[in-house]
């Protein structure tokens, strides 16, 4: 395990396939021969995650919740159904819950076991979400993790940490920033960062970075 943490390609010769590439090709060959996977379907999945499914989906949901009280009510009551109604079908988990941040309560999401994450609304998890450091520290000391991400909350704001599982995944509904009265949903969606929907960030203030 020690010498192959970077890329494997350095110690290959001839045409080059890394150990990881060889194993993946072997799996794909065997599963395709037996009819368990279809290479074209695999390409379609990869294409969707690389180009269509990502945190912009979640940002539009948050912006809609900020501007449409009826949608917000439905989102908080049953996020799975509210999100499905917008065309974001979950293919990878059962239940999605939206957690509303307020001045009194800040929600933050982790998966201590592996990397359970609301893929259909946020795409694939960022690398830090999958790290042991985040997975353990988010639970033990969420305020110090927030400080690392540059987030300082008032002392009287309660911080709640939610541990995702394959069955229960979470989308944080960040607070709508000040100075956004009259903005359109599209403009508001631009203020919603991926991290703000995991709870390691806040929505951006207009004009600030």
């Amino acid at each position, binding site marked *: 395990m020690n010498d192959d943490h970077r890329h494997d390609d350095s110690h290959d010769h001839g045409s080059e396939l890394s150990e990881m*590439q060889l194993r993946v090709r072997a799996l794909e060959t065997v599963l395709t021969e037996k009819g368990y996977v279809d290479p074209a379907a695999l390409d379609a999945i990869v294409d969707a995650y690389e180009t269509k499914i990502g945190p912009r989906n979640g940002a539009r949901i948050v912006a809609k919740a900020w501007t449409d009280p009826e949608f917000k009510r439905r989102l908080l009551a049953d996020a799975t159904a509210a999100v499905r109604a917008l065309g974001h079908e979950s293919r990878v988990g059962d239940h999605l819950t939206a957690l509303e941040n307020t001045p009194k309560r800040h929600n933050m999401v982790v998966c201590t076991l592996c990397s359970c994450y609301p893929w259909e609304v946020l795409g694939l998890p960022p690398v830090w979400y999958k790290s*042991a450091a985040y997975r353990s*520290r988010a639970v033990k000391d969420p305020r110090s993790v927030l400080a690392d991400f540059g987030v300082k909350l008032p002392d009287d704001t309660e911080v709640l940490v939610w541990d995702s599982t394959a069955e229960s995944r979470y989308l944080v509904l960040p607070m709508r920033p000040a100075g956004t009265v009259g903005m359109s949903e599209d403009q508001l969606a631009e203020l919603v960062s991926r991290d703000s929907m995991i709870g390691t960030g806040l929505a951006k203030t207009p004009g600030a970075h």
Partner: protein
Amino acid sequence: MQSVRDIPRDSDGPVFREPWEAQAFAMALSLNQRGVFSWKEWAATLGDEIKKAQAAGDPDTGETYYRHWLAALERMVAEKGLADARTLSRTRDAWEHACARTPHGTPIELQPNDFGDA
């Protein structure tokens, strides 16, 4: 890219760093959609592979995540009786053989004689 204390950070970062990661990801999704395993089973297996790797000295910074993903996939495929470890390893060796005989810049294709005398 910045690293604040021990939590690696990225600014939206690439979805997959290398094509094999994407292929391994898509195969797991595909098998789940076919009902070969549930996400609950998957999360348990992946979590277990991550723990094993950590115990074996993996820094577990998230960079090696898809290695664990692939290990979980191979294990699940064997446990569910789709393909045993021997078949996978024989096919892996065949790809290596195909790779060695293929000149640079030419697509690598698997042929029956890559499987040797096994």
